[in-house]
């Protein structure tokens, strides 16, 4: 059965839309909103995208893509270059190895699993920064607040992913 070229183009722009949303989430994480505390306590939007797609559509988030996303975030946020790239590649790797288990779980379990993953990522950030800076600990209160905010905001943001997921073809 040959695929109609029109259908092919339809898939292409849908895939592009998914990637565009991920990019917008990345930029949202670095934009200035002039709102008190928001410059330090900012949810990790991109992490949500990587987590969701690693479970439900791994072809959307390949290792090279998450690496580039992390690198872009490092460059834009003045974080040590390679830090977010490292975290994102680890995240994608770990989650895609658990995806068969996670896919069978109810949404609440996915959410809780995301909370654990976010906490794990924050811990890696803390440890890496401690090593890189030669023993300067990051302010834990902002790190914890960001992680909690990321956890709380996962359901509303994942609604966008669920919507995008329906647009995607069954096999891709």
């Amino acid at each position, binding site marked *: 059965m040959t695929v109609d070229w029109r259908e092919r183009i339809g898939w292409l722009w849908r895939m592009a839309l998914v990637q565009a949303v991920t990019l917008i989430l990345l930029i949202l994480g670095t934009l*200035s909103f002039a709102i008190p505390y928001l410059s330090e306590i900012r949810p990790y939007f991109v992490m949500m995208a990587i987590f969701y797609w690693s479970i439900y559509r791994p072809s959307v988030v390949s*290792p090279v893509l998450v690496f580039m996303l992390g690198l872009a975030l490092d460059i834009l946020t003045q974080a040590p270059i390679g830090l977010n790239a490292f975290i994102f590649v680890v995240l994608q790797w770990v989650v895609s190895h658990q995806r068969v288990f996670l896919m069978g779980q109810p949404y609440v379990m996915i959410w809780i699993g995301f909370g654990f993953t976010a906490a794990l990522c924050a811990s890696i950030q803390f440890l890496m920064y401690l090593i890189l800076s030669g023993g300067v600990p990051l302010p834990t209160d902002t*790190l914890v607040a960001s992680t909690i905010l990321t956890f709380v905001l996962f359901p509303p943001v994942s609604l966008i992913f669920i919507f995008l997921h329906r647009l995607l073809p069954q096999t891709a």
Partner: protein
Amino acid sequence: MGGMTGSLIFLAMSLVLLFVSMVRPDSLGGLRSSAIDKITPLYSALSAPFYELADILGNVTGMAALQAENAQLKSENIRLREWYQTALMLQAENASLQELLNLKIETPQGFVSTRVIADSGNAFAQSAVVVAGANDGVEKGEAVLSGEGMIGRIIETGAVSARVLLLTDFNSRVPVVVEGTRQRAILAGTNGAMLAITHLPPDSNLQDGQKMVTSGQGGLFPPGLPVGRVVTTENGMKYVKPFADMGNVTYVRILDLPQDPNLIRGSDEIEAIIP
């Protein structure tokens, strides 16, 4: 299995990059500023609706508060008018006295005003991106102020954008002097809201509420820029709370580098009157 090798390759690559950024933190600085430059138009476009939204929200919710504020502003205006007259008088007096002394004061500082479009958005680095760069005469090292006081200095410049290292960043150091005294100190960022006071003589007696202004030592910043106020935290340590709210700055002013703050050139005219 292919996915696993891919992950391992990129894990290794990110670790190499991390190692490079640890050993040579400056080696990738050019990459950062050019990347920020490229993305600046996108930032400006994306942040514009948020600024407008904030304006609209401010207008809607502010209606009730406006009336009270108006009354307060009117009374304040009357008081300020008196001050204005006093200031004019003092300015005239100051000018005539300076003329009498033949004193050459430093030329007024040039500046660029601009908008903050992005901030670090994480706990690692306290920095912000502004939409003014080398094309607008912004140079590395220049002091950046908000309406309330100093917020930081320029650390990277692209053509149309620049990055500001905020006072609160762990790597930030600012030479200051306690206003009204000659006590000098260095304010160091802590990655938190407060600035640590270092290199203060042990016999100095700091009081809560004393103002810290830039001392101009080192020649990077002009002297007298307001930085913050001394506060005592619960554990009894003295810190400085910056006047400016770093997380809530929209517009900033970037001061030109001082010509040479340690040299005040005398007037040439004085030679003319010496026979």
